């Protein structure tokens, strides 16, 4: 048992010091019958090379992104992560540290979180950010609850362009809540959420680029919301877009939620990811999740601590702002390192490269007979309507070695109007030959 340090002799010696006859004596509070040295029927311990073989066999049954042309997006994006990022996050002092409850010996994590919060605030154009949430979808639900606390109003309007999974998470969090209005999707352009704002509205939630890739007018939405005393929550699933698109803060957003996976974090089949949440200064005491703040130590040196914890469950218990008790520390670290490596110059180039590849993709798709590109505006993702049902088309393309995007019906199975829609993304990893291969395969399948 390579992870357990005791020898049998040491165990016996320690039991002696304790004054226990055997291990069972240590479990004497367990009711009779519940303590079992039963055979669970689970495999016995295994040497490293066999465990590795088992896991490699499982991994080998999956098609990984690097195996061929890849256009899958819809809330998770395949970007290149510099080797430096993965090396650094695997350093023991980052990887194996716990929550920085003792700030004097956690300054590495705390300074990093302070830098991370600054990066997120700058990206989003907001005053303050927290130290990350679980992911973009749960972050959206938390933002909705935060808006209700801030406005003391109940009605929440979700735009039809919000990622369907995010909508579903908000629905689960606000189960059976009559004051939740989910507008239906409008794949072809801007649905008018602005007509749904009234004096009872706490917030409207708008994603940009939206699930279908369209860019949304945040300024108009902010003005309309504020005119009725409501808040604007902006959701971003592709943070790379912020390299080219105006910051939501500059357009009047009150709360910005984003999925941070695109920067520094691998696809990982959906997790772990990290939720970014940024807001205006006056709202910080209603902001959920961990926050790191600057202070000084006994010698007057700058240092950092977790702060404003009076909002949290371990102090306020049932009166807490949320039940959240952690953040995505390691994912935030990866995000922060990757962002520091990029800097403004690199981040802008990355965004431009993504947009350029997407423009090529859109132009190429527009040449395929049986394909209609629905977007007039987009960042790195778009929706096409195909002359055949999308789900089986995607399967057939997968058999040809091309992961060609997400059939919208997979996320909206009850809406037959989306059956022929596919959402596709391009990133810096999408090559010209990938695009050509997709065009050829699509043309053949749709012929």
């Amino acid at each position: 048992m390579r992870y357990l340090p005791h020898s049998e002799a040491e165990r016996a010696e320690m039991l002696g010091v304790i004054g226990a006859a055997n291990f069972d004596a240590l479990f004497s509070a367990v009711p009779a019958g519940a303590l079992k040295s039963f055979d669970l029927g689970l495999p016995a311990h295994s040497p490293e090379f066999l465990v590795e073989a088992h896991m490699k066999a499982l991994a080998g049954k999956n098609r990984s992104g690097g195996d061929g042309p890849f256009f899958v997006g819809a809330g998770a994006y395949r970007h290149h992560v510099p080797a430096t990022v993965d090396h650094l996050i695997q350093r023991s002092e980052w990887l194996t540290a716990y929550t920085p409850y003792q700030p004097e010996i956690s300054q590495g994590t705390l300074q990093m979180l302070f830098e991370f919060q600054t990066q997120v605030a700058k990206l989003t154009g907001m005053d303050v950010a927290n130290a990350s949430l679980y992911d973009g979808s749960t972050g959206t639900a938390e933002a909705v609850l935060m808006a209700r606390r801030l406005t003391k109003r109940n009605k929440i309007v979700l735009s039809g362009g919000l990622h369907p999974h995010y909508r579903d998470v908000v629905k689960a969090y606000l189960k059976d809540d009559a004051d939740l209005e989910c507008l239906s999707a409008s794949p072809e352009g801007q649905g008018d959420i602005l007509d749904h704002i009234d004096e009872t509205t706490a917030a409207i939630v708008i994603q940009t680029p939206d699930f279908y890739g369209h860019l949304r007018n945040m300024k108009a939405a902010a003005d309309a919301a504020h005119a009725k005393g409501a808040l604007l929550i902006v959701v971003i699933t592709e943070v790379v877009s912020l390299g080219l698109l105006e910051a939501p803060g500059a357009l009047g957003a009150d709360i910005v939620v984003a999925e941070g996976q695109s920067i520094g974090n691998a696809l990982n089949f959906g997790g772990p990811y990290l939720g970014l949440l940024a807001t205006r200064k006056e709202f910080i005491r209603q902001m959920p999740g961990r926050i790191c703040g600057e202070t000084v130590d006994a010698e007057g040196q700058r240092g950092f601590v977790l702060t404003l914890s009076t909002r949290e469950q371990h102090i306020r218990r049932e009166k807490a702002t949320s039940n959240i008790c952690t953040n995505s520390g390691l994912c935030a670290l990866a995000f922060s390192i990757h962002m520091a490596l990029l800097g403004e110059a690199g981040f802008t180039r990355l965004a431009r490269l993504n947009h350029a590849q997407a423009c090529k993709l859109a132009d190429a798709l527009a040449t395929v007979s049986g394909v209609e590109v629905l977007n007039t505006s987009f960042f790195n993702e778009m929706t096409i309507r195909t002359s055949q049902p999308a789900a089986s088309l995607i399967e057939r393309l997968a058999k040809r070695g091309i992961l060609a995007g997400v059939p919208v019906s997979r996320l909206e199975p009850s809406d037959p109007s989306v059956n022929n829609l596919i959402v596709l993304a391009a990133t810096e990893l999408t090559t010209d030959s990938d695009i050509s291969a997709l065009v050829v395969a699509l043309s053949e399948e749709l012929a």
Partner: protein
Amino acid sequence: MSMNNQGRPTGTGTAGFASTSGSALLPNEPLLFEIGDTEHSGVDLPDVTISTDRLGGFERKTPLDLAGLTEPEAMRHYVRLSRLNHSIDSGMYPLGSCTMKHNPRLNEKMARLPGFSDIHPLQPVSTVQGALELMEQLSHWLMTLTNTAAVALTPKAGAHGELLGMMAIKAAQEHAGQGHRKIVLVPESAHGTNPATAAFLGYTVKAVPAREDGTVDVQAVKDALSPEVAAIMLTNPNTCGLFEPQVIEIAAAVHEAGAFFYCDGANFNAIMGVVRPGDLGIDAMHINLHKTFSTPHGGGGPGAGPVVLSEALAPFAPVPFVRKGQNGLELVEHATGKVLGRITAFQGQMGMYVRALTYMLSHGGDGLAQAAQDAVLNANYIKARLQHIFSVPFPDYPTMHEALFDDSFLKDSGVTTLDFAKALIDEGFHPMTMYFPLVVHGAMLIEPTESESKQTLDRFCDVMEELAQDAKSGNKKRFTAAPMKAPRRRLDETRAARTPILKWERPAV
């Protein structure tokens, strides 16, 4: 882009390089924004010109002002910062109720196989059969170890699992026409997340007092039960480190009253492979994969909090989940019937599933049981070695995974529990958990886990004894001035909360 403050701390009231961390090999590290600028980049990307952009007139006009570092500069910045952290690989972390155990590097290696890390949550299910198989295997281990009927893998952290578990209970009761049940019983010693979760779902929290011996009294539970009670949220082993001896009777009484038993499984590491919570009558229990199955905590997360469910709650598990279909494994992504909706965008913490299963296979069923026994052995060893100085508030039972003491030995010494904990830092140890559980005044909760050798435990106990003697002998300064050898001296947390500075601002020139 010159910086007038390059390399120097800029925060309010700072006094330049001071003694604590000024050693040659552990320099103060400036902020990223003080050493980087908007021109430098450590990533080589072509600068593309786009002839006709499709940004619809929404292009950025406000500058990003994001500092960049070249690769060598970034390497040094993050390596230097890392050295200001304590970590489980650098020393013992006896944080009770938080459970820091060895993080095997094999887990990391496996999680980085492209077949796991480079797969998309929405790529065709036919192309991720291995991932679904892995989720099935992990589910099998979790259900077997707990003797339960179902498991929901997707919660992103223990507290998220709690939320899901209580949502399932709420849904089950509403389905059975019992939606009027609005009270949740929570023992006083519970984790703060328990009452927060119940309140979050609209329940009224009613505290159940602890007995003199630190455990929950079945009679107190019976007295609190009524047709209005939806559930009890009980931690077992509890936060005092004790196994609830009457847990089976408590479960029976709760069920008898038509309520559910939510078990906070934060401390499952103490009983895995030895006691199956399903045998005790639980209906739902989250399992913190990082605590019990060694996924790394990375300075605060990510966590992963799968929830096991009883037969009664199984139909309410959220989507997505894996099931066997005609063409191999299927991913059920949409709620039908009683199924709860979705509590996170995708399939949960796959990266953590890989690490947890790797750890399980490495240990095997036999090794997990041994690990639980060793964790309990280590906690009891610390208790046995230290109980002559540090008083044990609840001496009636052997402790489980953590040893609970109180600070009565510090009475009249002028040294607080916090001071004592900070002095431990100067001896190379991360402090224990302090002032928790709340039911014990001046609590000191120590959890060594199974990772620690007898030699390390002995050294820890020697230091604890020595510090206690020193505190009693009146050497106050060693404690009130501590830590003296850490990267920072005692930090002013009140100031941080009173005048929050939550991001770097460019200093006025």
